[in-house]
C-alpha cells in the first residue's frame, strides 16, 4: 500500500502559517508520532481518511503541530 498523506499544520511556525505538505509515504502516520516536513518536526495530532483506499493507494490527512525544540540531525 502507498499512503498519499496530506499534512496540515495547526498554529504558526516562526510566526507564519505553514503551507502544509502532500507526499507519498510507505506507512501511515500515527497520532503522537513526530514527522519531518521540509526541515522542521511536527507532532501528528489527528489522522483521518479522506476517501476509501483504491488502486493500492490509501488517502490520509494528518493534522500536526510544530515541535520547535527539535531540529534535524543534519
Amino acid at each position, binding site marked *: 500500500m502507498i499512503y498519499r498523506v496530506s499534512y496540515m499544520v495547526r498554529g504558526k511556525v516562526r510566526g507564519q502559517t505553514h503551507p502544509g505538505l502532500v507526499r507519498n509515504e510507505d506507512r501511515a502516520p500515527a497520532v503522537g508520532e513526530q514527522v519531518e516536513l521540509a526541515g522542521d518536526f511536527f507532532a501528528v495530532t489527528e489522522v483521518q481518511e*479522506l476517501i476509501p483506499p483504491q488502486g493500492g493507494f490509501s488517502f490520509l490527512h494528518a493534522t500536526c503541530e510544530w515541535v520547535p525544540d527539535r531540529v534535524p540531525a543534519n
Partner: protein
Amino acid sequence: MSLLESLGKVQIFTGLERDEVERVAALCQQRAFRKGDIIVREGETSQELFVIGEGMVEISLTTPAASTPLINLGKGQVFGEMTLVDRGARSATVTVLNDDTVLLAIPHDAFLELCESDNHIGFIVMRNLAAEMSLRLRYHNIAGAMFASE
C-alpha cells in the same frame, strides 16, 4: 528506482497495465533541479505535466505585495495537471525547495494524444485526475474549517 517504478507510485497512473505505463514513460523527460529553481510561473502558458520523482516543490501565488505559499508537494505528487484539462494559464508558481530534486516532465499534447488514441489509458488517467481534484478540494475544505476555528 527505475522510471517505470517511479510512475507506478504515482496516483494518477494507478490502474494502468504495465505496457500502458511503459507508453506513458516513453513520453517522460527526466530533469534535475536545484533549490530555488522556478519550474513554472503563475500566468504563463507552458504545456507540461510534472511528476515529482525526488525532492520537494512549493506551490505559491504571487500578489503585488508578496508570494504566498499554498502547499508543498513531495515525492509521487503531480502538478501542472490543471492546464492539461482546462488549457488555461498556469494557476500558480512552482519553486524547487530541495537540491537534487528530480522531476518527470510530460508534454501535454503528447499525453493527450496518447489518452485519445487509447481509451483505457484516457479513462483511467482522467478518472484518477478527477479523484486528485476531489482530494484537493477535500483538503481545502478541512483547511478552511481549521483556519476558521483558529
